[in-house]
């Protein structure tokens, strides 16, 4: 703060007392290198429940060259680097460990080019997901991944997390929608991964970069695929007397050979909260609702919507409603996408889980989730991407209640165990970050993790980019303990 004041008065910035910070300020600009306590505290967190982050200087580059300069300076000074988008991640992937320089790409927020001939758009990593689709939509296109945080999350963050969203059921997650990436590698070199051509030569480094949670480098330009808007959409709301019936309907639809654009389930508690919050017309008396959407051409959407309705009735649906207008459809989706915001009415804190189970195991695992929550005396709500088996149990609590966090974490651990035992996986779209490192050896052997680490070190031999994430302790690039114990006064 003092520096800012001095600069305004004298036009000069004093030395921060740290050679690295001074070098960053010289390379980027004093205004876009923040080293005050407020900025560092803010960037020590993301949207997850995890703390323990410790940010060094926060830089806001505007160009690839500036990102490159930051990475090179960090290498020269032996500092680590953590890339960051909007900080909406839920697994702690953007939490800086060991006081690295945080590279916030939010000022790199331009849509550079819409190239309809190649069905792609070049965008900078700080472009907000919904802004991209809103820009493309009038031209007949959109960006298919639509995470619930899409009003805030960035495309760079979507790339890091291989983000999903309700409509990824039919269209695929981010990896299917990213064609090429310009990245600054941990070495400081700029590389183009993938390409606009049909089958770029070499190993699919683009494919592994997407979803690597910011550990393989920093994305500076992204070629995203354009998806044509569908002329016809049908949105169905099915009500059920039990979550099991809703889950069985979802399994039945997939087994019936239909891949809807989206299939989302909400249980009664969350539906009530949503209805109070947005008044979307959700039923308050149903134990579960299924929001199913099909899109495409005129005849097919009617055929598929009729079949979904029938499969719902065969599974004891108590009501089947077809959204009559675009407004009605938009309201239903608004309800679904703001579900997490609606929780605040019930309790101040929540822990949103993210596992995937085979779709045929949905009903059984959900029953277990309710039983686990009951055993640990924690309130649970379920709102999830049912179509691809992606569960999102929400554990609701008030952190001021003594001992509640222990119960929340114990319940969370058992939910993960139940999902894995049913043949599922650790995460469907939130990633591993710091949240699930300790569970990685439940899904992967030591050899499996060793190979993941070999890939990691192929990009980043010195483990300098987002260290301490994804791969659990015991493998190189993962020694969180030492990262957390930063020597005193390293950062003043």
């Amino acid at each position, binding site marked *: 703060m003092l520096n800012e004041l001095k600069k305004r008065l004298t036009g000069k910035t004093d030395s921060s007392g740290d050679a690295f910070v001074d070098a960053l300020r010289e390379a980027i600009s004093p205004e876009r290198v923040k080293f005050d306590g407020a900025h560092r505290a803010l960037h020590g967190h993301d949207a997850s429940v995890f703390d323990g982050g410790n940010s060094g200087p926060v830089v806001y580059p505007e160009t690839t060259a500036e990102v490159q300069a930051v990475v090179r300076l960090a290498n020269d000074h032996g500092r680590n680097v953590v890339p960051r988008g909007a900080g909406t991640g839920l697994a702690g992937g953007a939490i800086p460990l060991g006081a690295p320089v945080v590279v916030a790409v939010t000022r790199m927020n331009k849509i550079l080019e819409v190239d309809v001939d*190649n069905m792609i758009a070049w965008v900078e990593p700080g472009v907000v997901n919904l802004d991209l689709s809103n820009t493309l939509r009038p031209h007949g296109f959109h960006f298919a991944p639509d995470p619930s945080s899409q009003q805030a999350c960035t495309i760079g963050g979507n790339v890091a997390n291989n983000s999903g969203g309700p409509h990824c059921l039919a269209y695929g997650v981010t990896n299917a929608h990213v064609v090429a990436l310009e990245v600054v590698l941990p070495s400081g070199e700029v590389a183009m991964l993938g390409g606009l051509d049909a089958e770029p030569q070499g190993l699919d480094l683009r494919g592994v970069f997407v979803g*690597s949670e910011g550990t393989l480098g920093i994305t500076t330009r992204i070629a995203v695929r354009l998806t044509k808007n569908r002329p016809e959409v049908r949105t169905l709301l099915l009500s059920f007397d039990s979550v099991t019936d809703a889950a069985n309907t979802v399994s039945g639809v997939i087994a019936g050979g239909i891949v809807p654009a989206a299939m989302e389930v909400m249980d009664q508690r969350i539906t009530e909260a949503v209805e109070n919050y947005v008044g979307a017309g959700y039923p308050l008396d149903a134990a579960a609702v299924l929001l199913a959407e099909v899109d495409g051409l005129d005849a*097919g959407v009617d055929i598929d919507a009729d079949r979904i309705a029938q499969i719902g009735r065969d599974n004891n649906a108590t009501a089947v409603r077809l959204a009559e207008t675009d407004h009605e459809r938009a309201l239903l989706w608004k309800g679904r996408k703001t579900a997490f915001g609606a929780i605040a009415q019930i309790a101040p804190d929540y822990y949103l889980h993210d596992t995937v189970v085979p779709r045929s195991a949905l009903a059984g695992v959900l029953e277990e989730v309710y039983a686990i929550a009951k055993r640990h005396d924690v309130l649970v709500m379920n709102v999830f991407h049912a179509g691809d088996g992606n569960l999102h149990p929400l554990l609701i609590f008030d952190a001021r209640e003594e001992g509640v966090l222990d119960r929340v974490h114990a319940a969370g651990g058992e939910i993960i165990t139940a999902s894995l035992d049913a043949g599922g996986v650790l995460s469907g779209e939130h990633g591993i970050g710091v949240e699930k490192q300790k569970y990685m050896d439940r899904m992967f052997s030591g050899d499996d993790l060793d190979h993941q680490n070999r890939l990691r070190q192929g990009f980043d*031999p010195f483990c300098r980019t987002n260290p301490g994430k994804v791969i659990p302790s015991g493998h190189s690039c993962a020694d969180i303990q030492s990262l957390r114990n930063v020597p005193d006064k390293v950062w003043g």
Partner: protein
Amino acid sequence: MVASPLLVSDDPVLAAFADEVGDTGPVSVAGSRTRWSLGGELADDTRIVTAPTGIVKYQPEEMTVQVRAGTTVAELHETLMAAGQRTGLPERGGTVGGALMAGENDLRALGRGRLREALLQVRYVSAEGRIINSGGPTVKNVSGFDLPRLIVGSLGTLGLVAEVILRTNPIPAVSRWYRSNDASPADVVEAVLAPSAVLFDGTSTWVELEGHAPDVDAELTRLQAIGSFEAVSGIPELPPHRWSFTPAEALAIDPAITGSYVSVVGLGLVFASQTQPNRTVTGAVQEVHERVKANFDPTGRLNPGRNPANK
């Protein structure tokens, strides 16, 4: 603590394959040898092994299939077809493992999905003779680094694939090919919502429409507004050599360079009578390639002589 079913690697068939691969000496897997010279000629003294075969577990209701790498794609698709499903793997007479190692898309990838999207889980034998598992059996998964992406198209230079879980998708009610001699391929792409394939040989345009019959009829009506189309039984004969262009470039092929050609519009893939000039990777990307290869195969024993950068 009980381990996840994913951790189970005591499958005797996989263990026997791992033993056969061993941990010393140059080694390669032969499938049907349909693309045997892709990425370079195998070194002479390389020991050849074969991957296990058979469909392990097919769950149509999950839209996934677990299959050994030595199974032919044709056999796999025959089994899936009985349940009304298919995969994004191209059928060229080869094996599942071979198709994944070559990394080539089906020319109908717009309708069936790109090859890389098809692989959900992979079990391969490492250069040290260990069975490595990556990815998972569910259709959505971001648990750890996405090694299946790395393995597809790697020509067996990072590990020898033993078994995979693939995503399947439903075969649409109707699949029909049409040909036109007067409609431009660019107009075709614009006129219809989601063709499964559009081909162009410089004169004629072929389009595959798939979906519910009334929708396919309606799409055909839209096509007939831009040209005359006739129903045909399938695709034209494809020239032998594969080129990779951008979708825009593939609409403006110069036959003086490629020879006679069939361009896969929207994808950028071109089949031509001339061979594509050698491609390679350079600079920082090459350095990452070399480090990844060295990390996965420190002694260079897996498929020596082949390099995915030279495909």
